[in-house]
């Protein structure tokens, strides 16, 4: 049989690149570039160039059940029956809030929609996913000040900006296509690039101004920038007057944050902070983008408020060539949030506590009542599992044992629950603890829609046949719902049917119908209220989506990280990602061409720090924190500032990072904690 090309959307980061899967007899043989795709114009990062994990012998092919003699294969019928009866039993004995569901930013919108619906129809809001570990602060913070948690405009607007500020983010490694196709294109047209963060990343190589700051000092720097902008009259007066509320309060708060104070807190010189501000204020067409370096802090939510406000002073909202917000790390983390796979939100960001919104959704679903208490977030699910309150956990396509900070406690929680189900394509570190493992089809073996970082909803077609008896997540959830006796709420056989329901439930998805999506290369950017609407690239054009219609300033104060260096733990530990490896390495680790190029973790340590500890390139060290130790190889690199060690987290470094939570967003402070290093051997 000849080769077939099927259009798909990349399963890795949030950029949403399109390409073709090349297949023969339903098996993956390679990829082909889609030069017409509006997001990436053909180009792809290394990860998408080798998807041989799809053919890995490690793929799960049969449902597995844990026995005294390890995992044994069982039939789908028995597996679904057992899962349903155990969940029913737990619900009956301990109530619905003793069950928790983890949805997946890797799965389609339709599948996430169904999993959260299942949780809620069962009577619990305990459904969450890894957005909690990444952009929950952005979602909530941007939601408060602008009314919408998502990126305010599209990549094209970033490309048309005259100033691009990249804060706590490294797109050169985490979103290479965004870096190459938009940020560097803007730069080649004369845009200025400013990078703020503790590591001189490959993104910072391309910056006109690099502001090196100690981890966890973002607010001090942002407030100082606003101080300069206000005191020197550099702000967009017309915009602030007309569209911003709370300016006077802000003036009060930022007054004491002089550049010199910011210098003493952050380590970045007052001079460089001023330089950055003058460059930023040189244009009213700018973008301010951030990632985990901003959000994974106990002040993640407040960091977002500070940055969003900084952009508001410059007038960087509501017009082409401006874009503000968080760059999303997973192919469908935006979509999973939109679908309501979050403990406090129903589909379309209706708060579970909002009686009117909740009862609207209840009536669309045909249920009398939906639970109105906020559910448990990902970190809290594991805490409550350890404390004994959560009795059963259902995990769809996530690997919290590697992705969660202080992961030893996640393992304790997983061991303690009475029943754990993991639905995945591989036997992950998390699945090892499961009672039942359900083999899922990978993204290219099924179809559905993904929503990228720009709010762009795109259809990814089915290219391959799943291995063995692996099945699409959608079918697994529907079968489970039937077995649970919830059949009437789950009358679906295809993702199209589910999307048609989503069109009715989520107003901003109302016009994004399956038919339209399948024939539109590059998809549709929400909000798209009707089938005739072309989608909305730029948000907040005339008014913000806040109750007042204005940008609502909430001034914030600097607060040190939960852990600061002391005599026992004198160094700061932060984490980063590398370009060829994706998250917990379950997929990239099984793709030979990428895994051989990025085979292991390397801790980046500054030459001065290394000299103090007598370390040289290639030494093996133990990074010790209050939560444990992590063994890693050293690479001397002056890209990190003195006193900071940066470790990639793909290979399990989250064992030692801090799980102190942001009180607003429940996001753990994975990006900064105190540590020491001990040389081994």
């Amino acid at each position, binding site marked *: 049989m000849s080769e077939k090309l099927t259009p798909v959307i990349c399963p890795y980061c949030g950029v949403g690149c399109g390409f073709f899967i090349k297949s023969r007899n339903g098996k993956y043989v*390679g*990829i*082909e*570039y889609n*030069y017409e795709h509006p997001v*990436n114009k*053909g*180009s*792809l*990062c*290394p990860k998408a*160039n*080798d998807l041989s994990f799809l053919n890995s012998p490690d793929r799960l092919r049969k449902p597995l059940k844990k026995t005294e003699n390890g995992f044994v294969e069982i039939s789908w019928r028995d597996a679904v029956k057992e899962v349903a009866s155990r969940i029913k039993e737990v619900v009956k004995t301990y109530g619905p809030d003793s069950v928790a569901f983890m949805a997946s930013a890797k799965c389609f919108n339709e599948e996430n929609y169904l999993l959260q619906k299942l949780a809620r129809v069962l009577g619990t809001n305990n459904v969450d996913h890894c957005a909690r570990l990444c952009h929950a602060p952005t979602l909530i913070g941007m939601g408060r000040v602008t009314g919408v948690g998502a990126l305010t405009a599209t990549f094209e607007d970033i490309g048309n900006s005259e100033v691009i500020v990249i804060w706590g983010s490294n797109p*050169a*490694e985490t979103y*290479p*296509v965004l*870096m*190459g*196709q938009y940020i*560097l294109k803007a730069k*080649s*047209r*004369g845009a200025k690039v400013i990078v703020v963060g503790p590591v*001189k990343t*490959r*993104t910072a*190589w*391309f910056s006109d101004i690099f502001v090196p700051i100690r981890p966890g000092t973002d607010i001090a720097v942002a407030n100082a920038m606003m101080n300069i902008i206000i005191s020197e009259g550099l702000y967009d007066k017309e915009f602030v007057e007309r569209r911003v509320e709370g300016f006077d309060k802000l003036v009060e708060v930022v007054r004491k944050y002089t550049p010199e104070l910011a210098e003493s807190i952050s380590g970045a010189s007052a001079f460089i902070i001023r330089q950055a501000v003058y460059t930023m204020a*040189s244009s009213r067409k700018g973008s301010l983008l951030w990632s985990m370096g901003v959000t994974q802090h106990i002040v993640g939510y407040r960091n977002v408020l500070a940055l969003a406000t900084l952009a508001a002073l410059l007038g960087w909202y509501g017009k082409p060539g401006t874009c503000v917000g968080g760059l999303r790390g997973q192919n469908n983390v935006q979509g999973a949030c939109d679908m309501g796979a979050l403990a406090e939100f129903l589909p379309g960001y209706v708060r579970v506590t909002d009686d009117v919104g909740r009862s609207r959704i209840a009536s669309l679903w045909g249920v009398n009542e939906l639970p109105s208490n906020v559910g448990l977030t990902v970190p809290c699910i594991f805490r409550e599992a350890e404390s004994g309150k959560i009795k059963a956990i259902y995990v769809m396509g996530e690997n919290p044992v590697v992705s969660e900070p202080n992961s030893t406690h996640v393992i304790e929680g997983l061991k303690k629950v009475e029943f754990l189900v993991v639905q995945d394509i591989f036997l992950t570190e998390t699945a090892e603890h499961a009672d039942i493992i359900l083999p899922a089809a990978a993204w290219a073996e099924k179809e559905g829609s993904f929503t990228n970082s720009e709010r762009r909803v795109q259809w990814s077609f089915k290219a391959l046949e799943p291995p063995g008896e692996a099945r699409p997540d959608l079918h697994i959830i529907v079968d489970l719902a039937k077995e649970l006796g919830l059949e009437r709420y789950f009358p679906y056989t295809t993702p199209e049917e589910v999307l048609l329901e989503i069109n009715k439930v989520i107003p901003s998805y109302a016009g994004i119908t399956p038919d339209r999506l399948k024939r539109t290369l590059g998809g549709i950017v929400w909000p798209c209220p009707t089938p005739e609407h072309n989608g909305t690239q730029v948000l907040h054009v005339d008014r913000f989506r806040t109750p007042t219609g204005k940008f609502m300033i909430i001034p914030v104060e600097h607060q040190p990280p939960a852990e600061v260096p002391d005599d026992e733990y004198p160094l700061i530990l932060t984490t980063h990602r590398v*370009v*060829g490896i994706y998250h917990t390495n379950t997929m990239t680790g099984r793709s030979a*061409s*990428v895994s051989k*190029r990025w085979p292991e973790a390397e801790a980046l340590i500054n030459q001065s720090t290394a000299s103090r500890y007598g370390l040289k390139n290639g030494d093996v060290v133990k990074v010790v924190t209050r939560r444990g130790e992590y063994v890693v190889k050293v690479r001397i*690199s*002056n*890209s990190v500032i003195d006193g900071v060690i940066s470790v990639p987290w793909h290979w399990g470094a989250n064992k030692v990072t801090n799980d102190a939570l942001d009180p607003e967003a429940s996001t753990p402070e994975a990006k900064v904690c105190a540590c020491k290093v001990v040389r081994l051997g």
Partner: protein
Amino acid sequence: MVKTLYVDPKLCIHCKACEVACEREHDGINFVEVYLVEEVEASIPYTCRHCENAPCVTVCPTKALYKSDRGVFVNYVRCIGCKQCIVACPFGIPKFLDKFKVIVKCDLCRHRLAKNLPPACASTCPTGAISYVEEVEVTRTKREAEISKIIESVKAAKTLLRT
């Protein structure tokens, strides 16, 4: 004008997408390599230049290496594995493939060119550090970028005068 590979290290972000793509298209061998030079914050993609007056072609005693209008290619049947080309190439490009005892090097993905598709490295490169274009496109892009910067500075100067 004939298209060829242009490499601009100033745009390289060291993602190695080209290496992975090349390896996929050539059964596990990659002809492009990317070198990191952290001290100067640079990354250099390194591949065959497909020279007009190619020393490898000149020294090849069996005409296994030859120059067509598209680039420099190897006829594996003719290659006797004498490795003269390895010495002659100023860029250190030809590799000796022990398994088949022949010389291998970038073939511009000729199986793709035959289908009118550009080489994989240039197709995948996120930044345009590697491009497969005509010379005039390179010069035009450079000129346009420079001119737009001049326009910006003129604009800035005029704004200054006005205020």
